[in-house]
């Protein structure tokens, strides 16, 4: 239990640092803008208290906002994502219910499950984030393009990170 908490804190700090020092400055054009840090919220245990997840999501978003000078944008996106999380987990539940030992990782639930869960969550997060930032629907399709391309890049990085963490464990 304690090690789980420690692991999650470490994950939070590591991915926060990767986000603000590497990904923020990795200038791949306007369309590719990955927000890998959401992996921290996505990898919280499946059975964790949903209200706690939402509060953690709020503060994670605020921390990123502080570094990006986008006060509230990431927090709003993360809270929305956390609100949808129970429903998404239920939708993708394998044969009705999760094992008590199930973790939201490739190792535990397989790549197809991770892709659909991470894909949906990341898409919702990016949808709120980028449309809130653009704030107008005049550039609807270009903003939607940013949402889709950035979501793909974020999901790719999350899957890659999971593979690396899995390697580190074995």
């Amino acid at each position, binding site marked *: 239990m304690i090690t789980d908490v420690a692991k999650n804190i470490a994950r939070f700090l590591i991915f926060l*640092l990767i986000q*603000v020092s590497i990904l923020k400055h990795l200038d791949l054009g306007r369309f590719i803008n990955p927000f890998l840090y959401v992996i921290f919220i996505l990898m919280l245990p499946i059975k964790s208290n949903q209200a706690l997840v939402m509060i953690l999501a709020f503060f994670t978003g605020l921390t990123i906002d*502080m570094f*990006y000078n986008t*006060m509230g944008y990431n927090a*709003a996106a993360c*809270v*929305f994502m956390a609100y949808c999380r129970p429903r998404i987990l239920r939708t993708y539940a394998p044969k009705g219910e999760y094992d008590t030992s199930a973790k939201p990782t490739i190792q535990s639930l397989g790549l197809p499950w991770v892709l659909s869960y991470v894909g949906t969550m990341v898409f919702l997060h990016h949808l709120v984030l980028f449309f809130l930032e*653009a704030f107008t629907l005049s*550039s609807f399709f270009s903003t939607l393009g940013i949402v889709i391309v950035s979501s793909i890049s974020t999901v790719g990085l999350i899957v890659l990170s999971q593979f690396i963490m899995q390697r580190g464990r074995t």
Partner: protein
Amino acid sequence: MYGIIAFFRRHYFAVLFVALEFLSLYFVFKDNYYHQAGFFNSANSVAGSVYKTYNGITSYFNLASENERLAVENTMLHNTLGSTPDTSKHLKVAHTNPYGDQFNFITAQVIDNSTNQINNYLTLNIGKNQGVAEGMGVISPSGIVGVVIGVSDHYTVVMSLLHKNYQLSAMLKKGGAFGTITWDGGDFRFALLKQIPMSETVKVGDTIVSSGYSTLYPKGITVGTVETVEPVPTQYFYKIKVRLATNFKNLGFVYVVSDLMKKEKTELQDNAYKANEGK
């Protein structure tokens, strides 16, 4: 009463969602939150020191181009001073500057910067302790950069010209027509110049400089050059695309401009407005 408690117990998740989302959106839409506290932006000590460390490592990669820019600026300043190596003259000049005594320049290093967001910001390694205040202009050796919107003791947050709320009063160097520079998102190399009337002649390659109507920058700081000019049908203004002089992707050192007469100017204007209203 029991009804209310029962409602919250049943729907606590939705209530929590609404509360947190409301709080987030409140931060988003609240005006001028930068003026509140130094904590909620990258000028706070945590974000500032992370960026400073990061910059300490990465700034070495840009040393060559940074040196070149500073050398070019040195040459330009030498040329404006004249070529006589008269030390007494140089010493005298060192205490003044080309803009007279109205403007003071504070050197700063950019420790964080972005060009690919919808709204871009810079973080500088100086703050209140070095005399920076909100509302000061920021320029680079090559042109306009942005405006200070947040300061803590040791760090400064700058709204980049690449921001949807940024506006700059600019003019054509040749002809002197006034317009407004804005950024429409997209390419970090270009901005738009609006409100130049069709009666003016504008050519591709013409230089655009700051107009000096605002207290942010001295008059005549380079903004960029005209890239394309199109007449807008049904309107009396040109649509001008401007190639920015500042390379926002590669900013090393910048200058924060402090206008020593800003207070006097705004006080005078305020008094004049008040006097006018009294009539």
